[in-house]
């Protein structure tokens, strides 16, 4: 009987750890494969590569279309993040601890872009802007991006406001500090990691946005993910592997940095 129990427990462990190991490899392998293949000396995406070189990274120095798109994406993501923080943080403060039905309704509204198909929203925005006669421009792109990125700022900020010790704010007020002074000297420093984490995720998700950019960009505002997608649809260009390698390394470094300064991983759950 005891041996049977031991066997069952062993079987359970083997299945669970086996599946966990499989998904670990599944999550990690694609990034590794891209990094390895980006150093190929050949002209194809053959894996393993026939030899190794930096040639595809060197080729990026002349890839002006990709550089142009990357520059646009960075600018749009920066503007989107700034506007998302400006609009999202006050709104998060307002609804974080409010139990009213109106606050709950606003919360659901602000979070809804996370689950609704962004492509439908992108098309709706295009129709809206063309109806009011506003041609697509960096401005329309930023507006569209803010709608789908502001939920990330809201989510992490609301979580950090919910953890605030409100007695701190009350004692600050009772000592005669003005609301603005209390906000600047006590509230803001305490919720700053939450805002930072949200701003970081908003930035990454704007930089990576496809479904909204698809409808709201034109040749002058080419976006990096869309440029890469169109390149991949046409031909399998190895320079895309080099771009991907750069993006993986930058993402990983930023992620580790944000983990240090804002405890990113705790704020994503």
């Amino acid at each position: 009987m005891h041996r049977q129990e031991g066997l069952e427990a062993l079987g359970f462990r083997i299945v669970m750890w086996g599946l966990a190991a499989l998904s670990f490899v599944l999550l990690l392998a694609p990034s590794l494969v891209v990094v390895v293949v980006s150093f190929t000396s050949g002209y194809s995406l053959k894996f393993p590569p026939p030899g190794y070189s930096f040639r595809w990274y060197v080729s990026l120095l002349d890839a002006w279309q990709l550089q142009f798109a990357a520059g646009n994406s960075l600018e749009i993501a920066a503007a989107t993040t700034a506007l998302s923080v400006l609009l999202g943080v006050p709104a998060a403060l307002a609804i974080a601890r409010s139990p009213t039905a109106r606050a709950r309704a606003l919360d659901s509204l602000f979070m809804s872009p996370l689950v609704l198909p962004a492509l439908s929203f992108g098309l709706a925005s295009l129709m809206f802007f063309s109806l009011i006669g506003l041609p697509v421009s960096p401005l329309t792109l930023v507006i569209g991006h803010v709608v789908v990125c502001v939920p990330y700022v809201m989510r992490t900020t609301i979580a950090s406001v919910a953890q605030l010790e409100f007695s701190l704010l009350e004692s600050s007020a009772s000592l005669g500090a003005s609301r603005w002074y209390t906000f600047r000297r006590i509230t803001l420093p305490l919720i700053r990691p939450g805002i930072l984490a949200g701003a970081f995720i908003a930035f990454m998700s704007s930089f990576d946005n496809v479904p909204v950019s698809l409808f709201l960009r034109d040749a002058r505002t080419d976006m990096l993910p869309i440029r890469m997608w169109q390149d991949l649809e046409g031909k399998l260009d190895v320079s895309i592997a080099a771009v991907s390698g750069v993006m993986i390394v930058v993402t990983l470094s930023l992620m580790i940095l944000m983990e240090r300064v804002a405890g990113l991983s705790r704020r994503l759950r």
Partner: protein
Amino acid sequence: MSYELKLAAPLAAFFGLFFILPLLILLYVSLQADTAMTSMAVSQFTRFLFDPFSLSVLAHTLFLGVEVTALCLILGFPLAWAYVRGPAWAQPILIVVVLLPLLTSVVVRTFAWIVILGRQGIVNSALLSLGLTDTPLRLLYTEGGVVVALAQVQMPLMVLPLITALSRIDRNLDDASAALGAGAWRGFWRVTVPLSLPGILAGCMLTYAAAITAFITQSLVGGGQMLFMPMYIYQQATALQNWPFAAAISIVFLAAVLAVVSVFNVLGRLSKAHAEA
């Protein structure tokens, strides 16, 4: 002490103007009889609902979401379980491996699968060198390829809520279940799974919504042979310039996603009440 609701007014106004109003215009355009947009009718919706091709695209897309979500759950649950039960030193490594794909560009992640599944990719070179096949298999542009790629791309959305749910479970319950003579599997199905149900449902909802709307992965790994709703909308709107029909498909798609999300929300609330009871 709390903040006034009026601090939310700027964002509420922004959403009213740039989120709700565009969606209302989408609805208005979908109710146009033709591309001239001069008379209103429900003809775009009847065209969709009586067209076997459109219906099959919708059904195919919704079913793709089920396949991806199931695979994510089967692989993601043990990973979250390993995170919670494994040694403390492994946790930072695991969290980086889970978060990196979430923050890496979706085009990059999809590109990785093109490299892996291609004719000269890692799977085919392994199969060829093991002598399991003489000619490279076609893995790209197959439904199986799309499901596996999407599962990897969306897995973090499943794993993160599961980690939260599993960390909340009192470890003593495991010991209690074992002490009462329940085997490992019985304890797992009767204690761990029911108590983590809120996390399972939250993870399934996020993965499902993300999988069926994943334009880039669907189009690059699926290729031209397989048509899913997002690409269908994009083609009708841009290549064919048929705005009323594109709007109608978008509305149908929005409604389908909303229905699925509401079902998960209701189930989530029930399961939370159950887990806390």
